[in-house]
Protein backbone atom coordinates (compact mmCIF):
# COMPACT_ATOMS: atom_id res chain seq x y z
CA UNK A 1 0.00 0.00 0.00
CA UNK A 2 1.15 3.52 -0.74
CA UNK A 3 2.47 5.63 2.09
CA UNK A 4 -0.32 7.62 3.62
CA UNK A 5 1.38 10.73 4.90
CA UNK A 6 -1.87 12.53 5.75
CA UNK A 7 -2.92 9.75 8.09
CA UNK A 8 0.55 9.56 9.57
CA UNK A 9 0.93 13.32 10.12
CA UNK A 10 -2.60 13.57 11.48
CA UNK A 11 -2.06 10.73 13.94
CA UNK A 12 1.27 12.22 15.03
CA UNK A 13 -0.16 15.73 15.62
CA UNK A 14 -3.25 14.37 17.36
CA UNK A 15 -1.02 12.15 19.48
CA UNK A 16 1.10 15.11 20.60
CA UNK A 17 -2.01 17.13 21.42
CA UNK A 18 -3.55 14.18 23.27
CA UNK A 19 -0.42 13.78 25.40
CA UNK A 20 -0.42 17.52 26.21
CA UNK A 21 -4.12 17.43 27.05
CA UNK A 22 -3.73 14.36 29.28
CA UNK A 23 -0.79 16.09 30.95
CA UNK A 24 -3.03 19.10 31.53
CA UNK A 25 -5.47 17.00 33.55
CA UNK A 26 -2.76 16.27 36.14
CA UNK A 27 -0.18 19.02 35.88
CA UNK A 28 0.01 22.51 34.43
CA UNK A 29 3.05 24.85 34.65
CA UNK A 30 1.02 27.26 36.81
CA UNK A 31 -2.39 26.92 38.38
CA UNK A 32 -4.86 27.96 35.65
CA UNK A 33 -6.80 30.09 38.12
CA UNK A 34 -3.92 31.55 40.17
CA UNK A 35 -3.84 35.33 39.79
CA UNK A 36 -0.61 37.25 39.98
CA UNK A 37 -0.96 41.02 40.16
CA UNK A 38 2.67 41.70 39.31
CA UNK A 39 2.59 39.73 36.05
CA UNK A 40 -0.34 41.20 34.14
CA UNK A 41 -0.37 41.28 30.32
CA UNK A 42 3.05 39.73 29.87
CA UNK A 43 3.91 38.71 26.32
CA UNK A 44 4.91 35.17 25.43
CA UNK A 45 8.26 34.16 26.91
CA UNK A 46 9.97 31.05 28.21
CA UNK A 47 8.38 31.60 31.63
CA UNK A 48 4.91 32.01 30.19
CA UNK A 49 4.73 30.24 26.82
CA UNK A 50 1.58 32.07 25.77
CA UNK A 51 1.91 35.11 28.02
CA UNK A 52 -0.46 36.15 30.79
CA UNK A 53 -3.93 37.77 30.87
CA UNK A 54 -5.41 40.74 32.73
CA UNK A 55 -5.30 38.89 36.07
CA UNK A 56 -1.75 37.65 35.54
CA UNK A 57 -2.95 34.11 34.94
CA UNK A 58 -0.70 31.89 32.81
CA UNK A 59 -2.47 31.45 29.47
CA UNK A 60 -0.65 28.28 28.47
CA UNK A 61 -1.91 26.55 31.62
CA UNK A 62 -5.41 27.80 30.94
CA UNK A 63 -5.25 26.64 27.33
CA UNK A 64 -4.14 23.17 28.46
CA UNK A 65 -7.08 22.90 30.85
CA UNK A 66 -9.50 24.43 28.36
CA UNK A 67 -8.40 22.14 25.56
CA UNK A 68 -8.97 19.23 27.94
CA UNK A 69 -12.54 20.34 28.62
CA UNK A 70 -13.29 21.02 24.96
CA UNK A 71 -11.75 17.79 23.68
CA UNK A 72 -13.33 15.80 26.51
CA UNK A 73 -16.78 17.13 25.74
CA UNK A 74 -16.29 16.55 22.02
CA UNK A 75 -15.15 13.00 22.73
CA UNK A 76 -18.19 12.18 24.89
CA UNK A 77 -20.49 13.84 22.37
CA UNK A 78 -19.13 11.79 19.49
CA UNK A 79 -19.26 8.64 21.61
CA UNK A 80 -22.97 9.20 22.30
CA UNK A 81 -23.72 10.18 18.70
CA UNK A 82 -21.69 7.40 17.11
CA UNK A 83 -22.90 4.55 19.34
CA UNK A 84 -26.59 5.49 19.28
CA UNK A 85 -26.50 6.61 15.65
CA UNK A 86 -24.75 3.47 14.48
CA UNK A 87 -27.17 1.26 16.39
CA UNK A 88 -30.20 3.03 14.93
CA UNK A 89 -28.71 3.19 11.43
CA UNK A 90 -27.62 -0.45 11.44
CA UNK A 91 -31.01 -1.75 12.56
CA UNK A 92 -33.08 0.41 10.22
CA UNK A 93 -30.69 -0.10 7.30
CA UNK A 94 -30.67 -3.87 7.70
CA UNK A 95 -34.32 -4.51 8.48
CA UNK A 96 -35.94 -1.65 6.55
CA UNK A 97 -39.72 -1.49 6.73
CA UNK A 98 -42.06 1.07 8.24
CA UNK A 99 -39.82 1.92 11.20
CA UNK A 100 -37.01 2.70 8.79
CA UNK A 101 -39.25 4.90 6.68
CA UNK A 102 -40.63 6.73 9.71
CA UNK A 103 -37.22 7.30 11.28
CA UNK A 104 -35.79 8.61 8.03
CA UNK A 105 -38.64 11.10 7.67
CA UNK A 106 -38.04 12.15 11.28
CA UNK A 107 -34.38 12.50 10.39
CA UNK A 108 -35.33 14.82 7.51
CA UNK A 109 -37.21 17.02 9.94
CA UNK A 110 -34.26 17.09 12.32
CA UNK A 111 -31.93 18.31 9.57
CA UNK A 112 -34.13 21.42 9.34
CA UNK A 113 -32.48 22.55 12.56
CA UNK A 114 -28.85 23.53 12.11
CA UNK A 115 -26.81 21.60 14.68
CA UNK A 116 -26.00 24.56 16.93
CA UNK A 117 -29.61 25.75 16.83
CA UNK A 118 -30.88 22.34 17.93
CA UNK A 119 -28.25 22.14 20.64
CA UNK A 120 -29.30 25.59 21.85
CA UNK A 121 -32.92 24.43 22.04
CA UNK A 122 -31.87 21.40 24.09
CA UNK A 123 -29.67 23.53 26.30
CA UNK A 124 -32.46 25.97 27.04
CA UNK A 125 -34.75 23.04 27.85
CA UNK A 126 -32.15 21.33 30.07
CA UNK A 127 -30.84 24.53 31.63
CA UNK A 128 -27.62 26.30 30.57
CA UNK A 129 -24.27 26.29 32.30
CA UNK A 130 -23.63 22.63 33.03
CA UNK A 131 -20.95 20.54 31.34
CA UNK A 132 -23.17 17.45 31.34
CA UNK A 133 -26.08 19.24 29.74
CA UNK A 134 -23.79 20.39 26.94
CA UNK A 135 -22.61 16.81 26.36
CA UNK A 136 -26.16 15.50 26.41
CA UNK A 137 -27.50 18.20 24.10
CA UNK A 138 -24.71 17.90 21.55
CA UNK A 139 -24.71 14.11 21.76
CA UNK A 140 -28.40 13.91 20.92
CA UNK A 141 -27.94 16.42 18.11
CA UNK A 142 -25.23 14.27 16.52
CA UNK A 143 -27.26 11.04 16.48
CA UNK A 144 -29.24 11.69 13.25
CA UNK A 145 -26.21 12.36 11.05
CA UNK A 146 -24.48 9.16 12.21
CA UNK A 147 -27.71 7.22 11.79
CA UNK A 148 -28.02 8.44 8.21
CA UNK A 149 -24.48 7.52 7.23
CA UNK A 150 -24.67 4.09 8.87
CA UNK A 151 -28.08 3.35 7.40
CA UNK A 152 -26.84 3.93 3.86
CA UNK A 153 -23.82 1.70 4.45
CA UNK A 154 -25.84 -1.15 5.98
CA UNK A 155 -28.61 -0.92 3.41
CA UNK A 156 -26.08 -1.26 0.58
CA UNK A 157 -24.45 -4.29 2.24
CA UNK A 158 -27.73 -6.04 3.05
CA UNK A 159 -27.91 -8.13 -0.10
CA UNK A 160 -24.22 -8.52 -0.84
CA UNK A 161 -23.15 -12.12 -1.43
CA UNK A 162 -21.08 -12.64 1.70
CA UNK A 163 -23.96 -11.45 3.88
CA UNK A 164 -26.33 -13.76 2.05
CA UNK A 165 -24.03 -16.69 2.58
CA UNK A 166 -23.56 -16.16 6.31
CA UNK A 167 -27.32 -15.85 6.54
CA UNK A 168 -27.66 -19.20 4.76
CA UNK A 169 -25.13 -20.71 7.11
CA UNK A 170 -27.54 -19.88 9.90
CA UNK A 171 -25.75 -17.00 11.61
CA UNK A 172 -27.88 -15.02 14.02
CA UNK A 173 -28.90 -11.46 13.21
CA UNK A 174 -26.74 -9.93 15.91
CA UNK A 175 -23.74 -11.87 14.62
CA UNK A 176 -24.34 -10.81 11.02
CA UNK A 177 -24.66 -7.17 12.03
CA UNK A 178 -21.80 -6.95 14.50
CA UNK A 179 -19.22 -9.45 13.31
CA UNK A 180 -19.72 -9.45 9.57
CA UNK A 181 -21.18 -6.14 8.51
CA UNK A 182 -19.88 -3.60 11.06
CA UNK A 183 -16.16 -4.10 10.23
CA UNK A 184 -16.96 -3.56 6.56
CA UNK A 185 -18.59 -0.22 7.22
CA UNK A 186 -15.48 1.05 9.04
CA UNK A 187 -14.33 2.61 5.77
CA UNK A 188 -17.31 4.93 5.99
CA UNK A 189 -17.75 5.17 9.75
CA UNK A 190 -14.22 6.15 10.74
CA UNK A 191 -14.04 9.30 8.56
CA UNK A 192 -17.55 10.16 9.77
CA UNK A 193 -16.30 9.93 13.36
CA UNK A 194 -13.39 12.28 12.69
CA UNK A 195 -15.70 14.78 11.00
CA UNK A 196 -18.15 14.41 13.88
CA UNK A 197 -15.40 15.05 16.41
CA UNK A 198 -14.39 18.25 14.63
CA UNK A 199 -17.98 19.45 14.40
CA UNK A 200 -18.36 18.71 18.11
CA UNK A 201 -15.24 20.72 18.98
CA UNK A 202 -16.47 23.67 16.93
CA UNK A 203 -20.01 23.41 18.31
CA UNK A 204 -18.82 23.23 21.92
CA UNK A 205 -16.44 26.13 21.40
CA UNK A 206 -19.20 28.19 19.78
CA UNK A 207 -21.63 27.49 22.58
CA UNK A 208 -19.11 28.32 25.28
CA UNK A 209 -18.19 31.45 23.34
CA UNK A 210 -21.84 32.47 23.48
CA UNK A 211 -21.80 31.86 27.23
CA UNK A 212 -24.39 29.11 27.00
CA UNK A 213 -22.08 26.12 27.12
CA UNK A 214 -19.45 25.49 29.74
CA UNK A 215 -19.12 28.37 32.21
CA UNK A 216 -16.44 29.15 34.79
CA UNK A 217 -14.90 27.70 36.92
CA UNK A 218 -14.57 25.11 34.13
CA UNK A 219 -12.22 26.50 31.49
CA UNK A 220 -13.23 26.01 27.86
CA UNK A 221 -11.47 27.30 24.76
CA UNK A 222 -14.65 28.98 23.53
CA UNK A 223 -15.26 30.88 26.75
CA UNK A 224 -11.61 31.90 26.89
CA UNK A 225 -11.87 33.34 23.38
CA UNK A 226 -14.83 35.46 24.40
CA UNK A 227 -12.74 36.77 27.31
CA UNK A 228 -9.77 37.31 25.02
CA UNK A 229 -11.77 39.25 22.44
CA UNK A 230 -12.27 42.13 24.86
CA UNK A 231 -8.53 42.52 25.49
CA UNK A 232 -7.28 41.86 21.97
CA UNK A 233 -5.37 45.13 21.72
CA UNK A 234 -3.75 44.72 25.14
CA UNK A 235 -3.00 41.00 24.94
CA UNK A 236 -3.37 39.64 21.39
CA UNK A 237 -1.49 36.49 22.41
CA UNK A 238 -4.45 35.41 24.54
CA UNK A 239 -6.86 35.22 21.59
CA UNK A 240 -4.20 33.94 19.19
CA UNK A 241 -3.00 31.20 21.55
CA UNK A 242 -6.52 30.02 22.30
CA UNK A 243 -7.77 30.32 18.72
CA UNK A 244 -4.85 28.54 17.14
CA UNK A 245 -5.18 25.73 19.68
CA UNK A 246 -8.71 25.11 18.36
CA UNK A 247 -7.45 25.34 14.77
CA UNK A 248 -4.62 22.90 15.48
CA UNK A 249 -6.93 20.42 17.21
CA UNK A 250 -9.47 20.44 14.38
CA UNK A 251 -6.75 20.45 11.73
CA UNK A 252 -4.96 17.37 13.14
CA UNK A 253 -8.11 15.32 13.43
CA UNK A 254 -9.15 16.57 9.98
CA UNK A 255 -5.89 15.23 8.54
CA UNK A 256 -6.68 11.81 10.03
CA UNK A 257 -10.06 11.96 8.30
CA UNK A 258 -8.46 12.98 5.01
CA UNK A 259 -5.96 10.13 5.31
CA UNK A 260 -8.70 7.61 6.10
CA UNK A 261 -10.75 8.73 3.12
CA UNK A 262 -7.77 8.48 0.77
CA UNK A 263 -7.00 5.01 2.08
CA UNK A 264 -10.63 4.05 1.52
CA UNK A 265 -10.38 5.16 -2.11
CA UNK A 266 -7.19 3.16 -2.67
CA UNK A 267 -8.80 0.01 -1.32
CA UNK A 268 -11.94 0.44 -3.38
Amino acid at each position, binding site marked *: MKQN*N*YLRTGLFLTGVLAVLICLGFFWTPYSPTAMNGSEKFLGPSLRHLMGTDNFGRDIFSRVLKGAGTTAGIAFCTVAIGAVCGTAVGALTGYFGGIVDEALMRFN*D*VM*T*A*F*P*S*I*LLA*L*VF*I*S*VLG*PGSKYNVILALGVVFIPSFARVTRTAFASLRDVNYVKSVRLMGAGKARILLVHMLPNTAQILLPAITIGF*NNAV*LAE*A*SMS*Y*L*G*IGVTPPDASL*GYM*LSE*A*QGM*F*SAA*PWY*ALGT*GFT*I*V*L*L*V*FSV*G*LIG*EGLQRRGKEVA
Partner: protein
Amino acid sequence: MKFAAKRLAMLLVTMVVVSFLTFAAFSVISGDAAAAKLGTEITPERLAALQAEMGLDRPLMVRYGEWLAGFFSGNLGTSYSYQQPVADLIAPKVLVTLCLSFLSFLLIAAVSIPLGVWSIRYEGRTGWFWRFWDIVRTVFNQLCMAIPPFFTGILLSWLFGILLKWFVPGQFPELTEHPGGALRYLFFAAVSIAIPRVAMTVRMLRSTIISEMRKDYVRTVISRGNDRGSVLYRHVLKNSLVPVVTFLAQTMAEIVAASIVVEQVFGIPGLGRMLVASISNRDYPVVQVIVVILAFWVVLASTLADLVNQQIDPRLRLGGAK
Protein backbone atom coordinates in the same frame (compact mmCIF):
# COMPACT_ATOMS: atom_id res chain seq x y z
CA MET B 1 -45.90 20.43 -11.78
CA LYS B 2 -47.06 17.40 -9.88
CA PHE B 3 -43.60 17.10 -8.40
CA ALA B 4 -43.60 20.72 -7.31
CA ALA B 5 -47.01 20.35 -5.67
CA LYS B 6 -45.85 17.26 -3.82
CA ARG B 7 -42.69 18.98 -2.69
CA LEU B 8 -44.62 22.01 -1.46
CA ALA B 9 -47.01 19.77 0.46
CA MET B 10 -44.01 18.12 2.07
CA LEU B 11 -42.64 21.55 2.91
CA LEU B 12 -45.86 22.41 4.74
CA VAL B 13 -45.87 19.14 6.66
CA THR B 14 -42.23 19.57 7.66
CA MET B 15 -42.89 23.11 8.83
CA VAL B 16 -45.84 22.03 10.93
CA VAL B 17 -43.81 19.22 12.50
CA VAL B 18 -40.82 21.49 13.10
CA SER B 19 -42.93 24.15 14.74
CA PHE B 20 -44.83 21.59 16.81
CA LEU B 21 -41.64 19.98 18.08
CA THR B 22 -40.26 23.36 19.04
CA PHE B 23 -43.50 24.35 20.70
CA ALA B 24 -43.72 21.08 22.61
CA ALA B 25 -40.11 21.33 23.76
CA PHE B 26 -40.67 24.77 25.18
CA SER B 27 -44.01 23.84 26.74
CA VAL B 28 -42.20 21.33 28.90
CA ILE B 29 -40.25 24.15 30.55
CA SER B 30 -42.78 26.98 30.45
CA GLY B 31 -43.95 25.95 33.90
CA ASP B 32 -40.49 26.86 35.10
CA ALA B 33 -40.85 30.21 33.40
CA ALA B 34 -43.88 31.02 35.53
CA ALA B 35 -42.02 29.84 38.60
CA ALA B 36 -38.97 31.91 37.64
CA LYS B 37 -41.13 34.97 37.14
CA LEU B 38 -42.51 34.67 40.66
CA GLY B 39 -39.07 34.14 42.13
CA THR B 40 -39.04 33.98 45.91
CA GLU B 41 -42.70 34.99 46.24
CA ILE B 42 -43.78 31.60 44.97
CA THR B 43 -46.79 29.86 46.49
CA PRO B 44 -48.81 27.08 44.84
CA GLU B 45 -51.85 29.40 44.46
CA ARG B 46 -49.88 32.21 42.92
CA LEU B 47 -48.14 29.81 40.56
CA ALA B 48 -51.49 28.38 39.43
CA ALA B 49 -52.90 31.88 38.96
CA LEU B 50 -49.93 33.04 36.92
CA GLN B 51 -49.98 29.88 34.83
CA ALA B 52 -53.62 30.54 34.09
CA GLU B 53 -52.81 34.13 33.19
CA MET B 54 -50.02 32.98 30.88
CA GLY B 55 -52.38 30.38 29.44
CA LEU B 56 -50.26 27.48 30.57
CA ASP B 57 -53.09 25.52 32.20
CA ARG B 58 -54.79 24.48 28.97
CA PRO B 59 -54.02 21.38 26.87
CA LEU B 60 -50.91 21.43 24.67
CA MET B 61 -52.71 20.99 21.35
CA VAL B 62 -55.07 23.91 22.01
CA ARG B 63 -52.19 26.19 22.86
CA TYR B 64 -50.27 25.02 19.80
CA GLY B 65 -53.26 25.72 17.56
CA GLU B 66 -53.62 29.23 18.96
CA TRP B 67 -49.91 29.87 18.69
CA LEU B 68 -49.82 28.69 15.07
CA ALA B 69 -52.81 30.85 14.16
CA GLY B 70 -51.08 33.77 15.88
CA PHE B 71 -47.83 33.05 14.06
CA PHE B 72 -49.43 33.54 10.66
CA SER B 73 -51.47 36.57 11.66
CA GLY B 74 -48.39 38.28 13.12
CA ASN B 75 -49.38 37.88 16.76
CA LEU B 76 -46.37 36.09 18.18
CA GLY B 77 -47.09 36.49 21.86
CA THR B 78 -45.45 38.71 24.45
CA SER B 79 -41.85 38.61 25.55
CA TYR B 80 -41.43 37.72 29.23
CA SER B 81 -38.47 39.98 29.83
CA TYR B 82 -39.29 43.02 27.66
CA GLN B 83 -43.09 42.98 28.14
CA GLN B 84 -43.43 43.84 24.45
CA PRO B 85 -45.00 41.94 21.57
CA VAL B 86 -42.45 39.50 20.17
CA ALA B 87 -43.30 40.62 16.63
CA ASP B 88 -42.15 44.19 17.34
CA LEU B 89 -38.93 42.95 18.90
CA ILE B 90 -38.05 40.61 16.07
CA ALA B 91 -39.19 42.47 12.95
CA PRO B 92 -36.14 44.76 12.55
CA LYS B 93 -33.76 41.87 13.22
CA VAL B 94 -35.10 39.48 10.61
CA LEU B 95 -33.90 41.72 7.78
CA VAL B 96 -30.39 42.00 9.22
CA THR B 97 -30.00 38.24 9.55
CA LEU B 98 -31.49 37.69 6.09
CA CYS B 99 -28.95 40.11 4.58
CA LEU B 100 -26.10 38.39 6.40
CA SER B 101 -27.19 34.92 5.23
CA PHE B 102 -27.63 36.06 1.64
CA LEU B 103 -24.29 37.83 1.58
CA SER B 104 -22.53 34.75 2.99
CA PHE B 105 -24.31 32.51 0.52
CA LEU B 106 -23.39 34.69 -2.46
CA LEU B 107 -19.81 34.84 -1.29
CA ILE B 108 -19.60 31.06 -0.89
CA ALA B 109 -21.13 30.36 -4.30
CA ALA B 110 -19.14 33.06 -6.09
CA VAL B 111 -15.78 31.96 -4.68
CA SER B 112 -16.09 28.20 -4.36
CA ILE B 113 -17.57 27.26 -7.74
CA PRO B 114 -14.85 28.89 -9.89
CA LEU B 115 -12.19 27.70 -7.45
CA GLY B 116 -13.49 24.14 -7.53
CA VAL B 117 -13.65 24.03 -11.32
CA TRP B 118 -10.20 25.58 -11.61
CA SER B 119 -8.75 22.99 -9.25
CA ILE B 120 -9.95 20.23 -11.59
CA ARG B 121 -8.16 21.54 -14.68
CA TYR B 122 -4.81 20.17 -13.59
CA GLU B 123 -6.11 16.92 -12.19
CA GLY B 124 -4.30 13.82 -13.35
CA ARG B 125 -0.99 15.46 -14.22
CA THR B 126 2.07 13.73 -12.82
CA GLY B 127 5.49 14.97 -11.80
CA TRP B 128 6.94 16.28 -8.59
CA PHE B 129 5.38 19.72 -8.94
CA TRP B 130 1.80 18.47 -9.17
CA ARG B 131 2.31 16.02 -6.35
CA PHE B 132 3.63 18.86 -4.22
CA TRP B 133 0.76 21.10 -5.35
CA ASP B 134 -1.73 18.43 -4.32
CA ILE B 135 -0.27 18.36 -0.81
CA VAL B 136 -0.29 22.16 -0.51
CA ARG B 137 -3.87 22.30 -1.72
CA THR B 138 -5.06 19.58 0.67
CA VAL B 139 -3.32 21.05 3.69
CA PHE B 140 -4.61 24.55 2.92
CA ASN B 141 -8.11 23.15 2.45
CA GLN B 142 -7.99 21.34 5.80
CA LEU B 143 -6.65 24.46 7.52
CA CYS B 144 -9.47 26.60 6.18
CA MET B 145 -12.02 24.04 7.36
CA ALA B 146 -10.45 24.08 10.82
CA ILE B 147 -10.82 27.82 11.42
CA PRO B 148 -13.90 28.49 13.54
CA PRO B 149 -15.93 31.47 12.21
CA PHE B 150 -15.80 33.28 15.54
CA PHE B 151 -12.01 33.18 15.60
CA THR B 152 -11.83 34.58 12.05
CA GLY B 153 -14.36 37.15 13.19
CA ILE B 154 -12.17 38.27 16.08
CA LEU B 155 -9.14 38.55 13.82
CA LEU B 156 -11.02 40.38 11.05
CA SER B 157 -12.65 42.86 13.38
CA TRP B 158 -9.26 43.62 14.87
CA LEU B 159 -7.48 43.92 11.51
CA PHE B 160 -10.11 45.86 9.58
CA GLY B 161 -11.94 47.45 12.47
CA ILE B 162 -9.25 48.58 14.87
CA LEU B 163 -6.09 48.64 12.76
CA LEU B 164 -7.38 49.80 9.36
CA LYS B 165 -10.58 51.44 10.66
CA TRP B 166 -12.70 50.29 7.70
CA PHE B 167 -15.61 49.86 10.09
CA VAL B 168 -16.27 50.47 13.76
CA PRO B 169 -16.68 47.16 15.61
CA GLY B 170 -19.76 47.17 17.80
CA GLN B 171 -21.46 50.06 16.03
CA PHE B 172 -23.70 48.54 13.43
CA PRO B 173 -25.13 51.22 11.09
CA GLU B 174 -28.93 51.21 10.75
CA LEU B 175 -29.67 48.95 7.79
CA THR B 176 -32.47 51.08 6.34
CA GLU B 177 -30.74 54.42 6.87
CA HIS B 178 -27.16 53.59 5.86
CA PRO B 179 -27.46 50.50 3.67
CA GLY B 180 -23.94 50.93 2.26
CA GLY B 181 -22.21 51.10 5.61
CA ALA B 182 -24.32 48.28 6.99
CA LEU B 183 -23.54 46.03 4.05
CA ARG B 184 -19.82 46.76 4.40
CA TYR B 185 -20.08 45.85 8.08
CA LEU B 186 -21.96 42.65 7.22
CA PHE B 187 -19.42 41.80 4.53
CA PHE B 188 -16.69 41.11 7.09
CA ALA B 189 -19.04 38.92 9.10
CA ALA B 190 -19.96 37.09 5.90
CA VAL B 191 -16.29 36.49 5.10
CA SER B 192 -15.71 34.81 8.43
CA ILE B 193 -18.76 32.61 7.92
CA ALA B 194 -17.73 31.80 4.36
CA ILE B 195 -14.10 30.69 4.74
CA PRO B 196 -14.66 27.18 6.17
CA ARG B 197 -17.71 26.62 3.98
CA VAL B 198 -15.84 27.62 0.81
CA ALA B 199 -13.20 25.04 1.68
CA MET B 200 -15.86 22.36 2.14
CA THR B 201 -17.69 23.26 -1.04
CA VAL B 202 -14.51 23.23 -3.13
CA ARG B 203 -13.63 19.82 -1.72
CA MET B 204 -17.09 18.49 -2.45
CA LEU B 205 -17.11 19.96 -5.99
CA ARG B 206 -13.75 18.41 -6.72
CA SER B 207 -14.75 14.91 -5.73
CA THR B 208 -18.08 15.17 -7.58
CA ILE B 209 -16.49 16.39 -10.79
CA ILE B 210 -13.62 13.91 -10.61
CA SER B 211 -15.96 10.96 -10.24
CA GLU B 212 -18.06 12.33 -13.11
CA MET B 213 -14.94 12.63 -15.29
CA ARG B 214 -14.33 8.91 -14.87
CA LYS B 215 -17.64 7.97 -16.49
CA ASP B 216 -17.89 6.22 -19.83
CA TYR B 217 -19.48 9.07 -21.73
CA VAL B 218 -16.53 11.33 -20.93
CA ARG B 219 -14.12 8.75 -22.31
CA THR B 220 -16.24 8.51 -25.45
CA VAL B 221 -16.34 12.28 -25.97
CA ILE B 222 -12.58 12.54 -25.46
CA SER B 223 -11.94 9.64 -27.82
CA ARG B 224 -13.86 11.54 -30.48
CA GLY B 225 -11.24 14.26 -30.34
CA ASN B 226 -12.50 16.79 -27.76
CA ASP B 227 -10.04 18.09 -25.21
CA ARG B 228 -10.53 17.75 -21.46
CA GLY B 229 -11.27 21.43 -20.94
CA SER B 230 -14.19 21.61 -23.35
CA VAL B 231 -15.59 18.31 -22.05
CA LEU B 232 -15.41 19.70 -18.53
CA TYR B 233 -17.30 22.87 -19.39
CA ARG B 234 -19.76 21.49 -21.93
CA HIS B 235 -20.76 18.15 -20.43
CA VAL B 236 -19.37 17.35 -17.02
CA LEU B 237 -20.30 20.57 -15.21
CA LYS B 238 -23.95 20.26 -16.18
CA ASN B 239 -24.08 16.70 -14.94
CA SER B 240 -22.43 17.43 -11.60
CA LEU B 241 -24.77 20.30 -10.82
CA VAL B 242 -27.44 18.33 -8.92
CA PRO B 243 -25.35 17.27 -5.90
CA VAL B 244 -23.81 20.74 -5.82
CA VAL B 245 -27.19 22.45 -5.55
CA THR B 246 -28.18 20.04 -2.78
CA PHE B 247 -24.92 20.75 -0.99
CA LEU B 248 -25.40 24.51 -1.28
CA ALA B 249 -28.85 24.18 0.29
CA GLN B 250 -27.31 22.34 3.23
CA THR B 251 -24.81 25.18 3.38
CA MET B 252 -27.75 27.45 4.20
CA ALA B 253 -28.25 25.51 7.44
CA GLU B 254 -24.59 25.95 8.31
CA ILE B 255 -24.73 29.66 7.49
CA VAL B 256 -27.66 30.11 9.84
CA ALA B 257 -25.81 28.23 12.58
CA ALA B 258 -22.62 30.22 12.05
CA SER B 259 -24.48 33.53 11.90
CA ILE B 260 -25.80 32.96 15.44
CA VAL B 261 -22.20 33.02 16.67
CA VAL B 262 -20.78 35.58 14.26
CA GLU B 263 -23.49 38.11 15.08
CA GLN B 264 -22.24 37.93 18.64
CA VAL B 265 -18.61 38.44 17.57
CA PHE B 266 -19.32 41.54 15.49
CA GLY B 267 -22.14 42.86 17.65
CA ILE B 268 -24.66 42.68 14.81
CA PRO B 269 -28.23 43.16 16.09
CA GLY B 270 -29.74 40.15 14.32
CA LEU B 271 -31.89 37.17 15.23
CA GLY B 272 -28.94 35.12 16.46
CA ARG B 273 -27.93 37.66 19.04
CA MET B 274 -31.50 38.04 20.20
CA LEU B 275 -31.75 34.24 20.46
CA VAL B 276 -28.70 33.95 22.68
CA ALA B 277 -29.83 36.80 24.92
CA SER B 278 -33.31 35.30 25.21
CA ILE B 279 -31.98 31.87 26.13
CA SER B 280 -29.95 33.43 28.93
CA ASN B 281 -33.02 35.37 30.12
CA ARG B 282 -35.25 32.29 29.81
CA ASP B 283 -37.52 34.35 27.57
CA TYR B 284 -39.14 31.35 25.91
CA PRO B 285 -41.76 33.05 23.68
CA VAL B 286 -38.92 34.87 21.89
CA VAL B 287 -36.65 31.82 21.70
CA GLN B 288 -39.48 29.72 20.30
CA VAL B 289 -40.34 32.15 17.51
CA ILE B 290 -36.70 32.68 16.49
CA VAL B 291 -36.00 28.94 16.42
CA VAL B 292 -39.04 28.36 14.23
CA ILE B 293 -38.13 31.22 11.86
CA LEU B 294 -34.56 29.98 11.44
CA ALA B 295 -35.72 26.40 10.89
CA PHE B 296 -38.31 27.55 8.32
CA TRP B 297 -35.58 29.43 6.53
CA VAL B 298 -33.49 26.26 6.26
CA VAL B 299 -36.41 24.08 5.15
CA LEU B 300 -37.32 26.66 2.55
CA ALA B 301 -33.78 26.59 1.17
CA SER B 302 -33.79 22.81 0.82
CA THR B 303 -37.21 22.88 -0.87
CA LEU B 304 -35.95 25.48 -3.33
CA ALA B 305 -32.92 23.31 -4.03
CA ASP B 306 -35.16 20.33 -4.79
CA LEU B 307 -37.28 22.42 -7.13
CA VAL B 308 -34.19 23.75 -8.93
CA ASN B 309 -32.80 20.22 -9.19
CA GLN B 310 -35.89 18.84 -10.84
CA GLN B 311 -35.61 21.62 -13.40
CA ILE B 312 -32.00 20.67 -14.06
CA ASP B 313 -32.44 16.91 -14.10
CA PRO B 314 -35.48 15.55 -15.96
CA ARG B 315 -35.05 12.16 -14.27
CA LEU B 316 -36.02 13.72 -10.94
CA ARG B 317 -39.06 15.35 -12.58
CA LEU B 318 -40.32 12.00 -13.80
CA GLY B 319 -39.85 10.57 -10.33
CA GLY B 320 -37.65 7.77 -11.65
CA ALA B 321 -34.47 8.25 -9.72
CA LYS B 322 -35.08 9.54 -6.25
